[in-house]
């Protein structure tokens, strides 16, 4: 199906009427962020990618899990599962498959996350302008990848505003059918033209080989290299909060008198408090150990437990780091370990 530029506003209105719609919006400070769309929302081009990933839509930074009085639960808030994300980059959509594994796989089920994901539709936008900080093709992704997406949107030619919408999942197909009133049928050769652009975008990206990094990390757990690569780390959590796969959280009770709410908030392995024990002992007392955890979780532990590297190469950590710690360079340094 084709979404013509002149039908975009009507399409947004139609979708926003039927669901909670999130699109990339221009941020006052420059760049873009995912925001809930209204009928007047302009969808901003995401070059570079949105400041925060799609994860913040499904795994909000602060979420009330329940409210309580004394020791009894008073209420458990409902979750709005009727969500549509339009214009996520394929790297973000792909990362959601791992978030699904974390919050819904292996017999565990996080009801809040799973409920939000159940009916949600992600329309991924094929990426014609991968950034120098992007490396999706080095971690098994592609600028037009469809993993985690329900619909793949792509521009009908360089700089074109008309979009080709192709269903990826059944959920995606019924989403397109539901809003067919705003869409036109696509020409038969549209998918092959899309494939050509996909190839062109991917060819602009350097492919790095990180396949050797896991055994080197595993064997070099105590290597002084960890010290060397994290020397300039400031210990903030910017890399983790902008990451589409970092999913650690904290649960706190916010009480007033005998009532309160139990909230879940993002937390990060880069903070020294993250692993501080009540005894005062901290098993990750140094930033070398904290960064090691971050890199090994993605590139060593996740491949064991979830059969995937938990990094989609979106490059946000590269762009957001105040001291330009570049994960690609850190991994390369670890691969060079003797």
């Amino acid at each position, binding site marked *: 199906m084709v979404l013509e530029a002149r039908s975009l506003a009507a399409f947004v209105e139609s979708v926003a009427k039927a669901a909670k719609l999130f699109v990339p919006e221009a941020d006052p400070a420059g*760049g873009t962020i995912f925001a809930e769309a209204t009928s007047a929302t302009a969808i901003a081009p995401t070059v570079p990618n949105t400041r925060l990933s799609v994860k913040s839509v499904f795994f909000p930074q602060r979420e009330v899990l329940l409210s309580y009085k004394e020791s009894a639960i008073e209420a458990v808030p409902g979750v709005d599962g009727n969500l549509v994300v339009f214009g996520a980059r394929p790297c973000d959509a792909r990362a959601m498959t791992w978030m699904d594994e974390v919050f819904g796989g292996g017999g565990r089920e996080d009801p809040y996350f799973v409920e939000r994901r159940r009916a949600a539709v992600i329309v991924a936008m094929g990426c014609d302008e991968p950034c120098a900080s992007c490396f999706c093709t080095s971690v098994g992704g592609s600028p037009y990848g469809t993993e985690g997406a329900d619909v793949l949107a792509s521009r009908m030619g360089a700089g074109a505003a008309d979009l080709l919408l192709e269903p990826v999942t059944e959920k995606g197909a019924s989403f397109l059918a539901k809003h067919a009133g705003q869409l036109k049928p696509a020409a038969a050769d549209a998918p092959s033209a899309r494939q050509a652009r996909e190839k062109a975008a991917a060819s602009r990206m350097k492919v790095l080989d990180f396949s050797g990094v896991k055994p080197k990390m595993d064997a070099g757990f105590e290597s002084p290299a960890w010290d060397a690569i994290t020397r300039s780390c*400031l210990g903030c959590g910017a890399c983790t909060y902008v990451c589409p796969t970092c999913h650690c959280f904290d649960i706190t009770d916010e009480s007033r008198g005998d009532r309160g709410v139990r909230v879940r908030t993002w937390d990060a392995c880069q903070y020294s408090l993250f692993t501080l024990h009540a005894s005062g002992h901290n098993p990750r007392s140094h930033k070398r150990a904290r960064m090691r955890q971050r890199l090994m979780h993605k590139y060593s532990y996740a491949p064991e437990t979830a059969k995937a590297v938990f990094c989609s190469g979106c490059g946000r950590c590269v762009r957001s780091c*105040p*001291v330009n710690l570049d994960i690609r360079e850190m991994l390369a340094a670890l691969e060079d370990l003797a």
Partner: protein
Amino acid sequence: MSAAIRDAIRAAARPLLAEGKVSLIVGYERGSNGYRCRPSFAARAGDIDRLEWDSTCSNNLAVFLPGLFQRPPQKKGQETPLPRIAFVAKACDLRSIVALVKELQAPRGNLVLIGVPCTGMVDERTVREAVGGAEVASFADDGKAVVVRTAAGAEHRFEREAVVQHACRCCQFPVPQGADVTVEGPARTPGDNGDGLVKDIEKLPPAERWARFSAEMSRCIRCYACRQACPTCYCKECFAEQNNPAWIGVGAEQTDVSIFHIVRIFHQAGRCVECDACLRACPMGIDLRTWTKKIAADVRALYGFTPDFDPTGKPPLVTFKEDDAQEFITEPGAQGHGG
């Protein structure tokens, strides 16, 4: 010009390591994206050749000082000696280092400061937005124009002053004073300290000022990048993370982030050198500068103090005089202070 300064920095640094006068040199090296330098740590002779200098050396290196001088609790009579460390320092880095020396984070005698006069650093965000994420092949600054070429061949040319960081354009102290070695090089003419920004918010009625502050902070994700990038934010345990008692909630609710920023900014009174490290570090691009500038302006107006190059004397937060200004407490709102 920057190549000559780079060579002078290396020439100053090399004997310091070779003669064992310091064990580490903190400076800058080329970054991974082509248009910025980043912090660098030279501990061996070979590392010296990595040291770089150009107009992208924005990071305030003083942020590393407290950590480098931190030791585990020491047994009396068996103390491990403190290290001796050299810092490449622009005037802003140097003023932060002086503030830290005053707060006993490192003895001045254990520091070798390589001062570098500064013509102002280029604003990374402006360049980044111009290149739109494209790979950068070269970055050149001839003192008048900044030219960035992308790998695809596109050229972005900027008039230099148009892309120099706001903090640098209004910097009152472009020339470092009191360094152990000062590299020769050009410096910019001192600026007006950006007081216009402060006047703009002082003019606002408190409700509007609060609305502007709140709107800005509502975008905070509380990643603490501002705090971690700030040389004078080095508390071992930040009030924002204490949980017994918990002063504020742990999330990014408006009240919690507002209080976090207010307390952080207040604790910068008389210590902030207005280098904008917080602003540069913020992944959300929040204006953190206006509010720290306001505190700095208040300390200047009320206590006649500016964190400068003088390592003697006590900073205003740890002194009390009977005639200290107190109208901002007793008559809030007067003269634009407090409120």
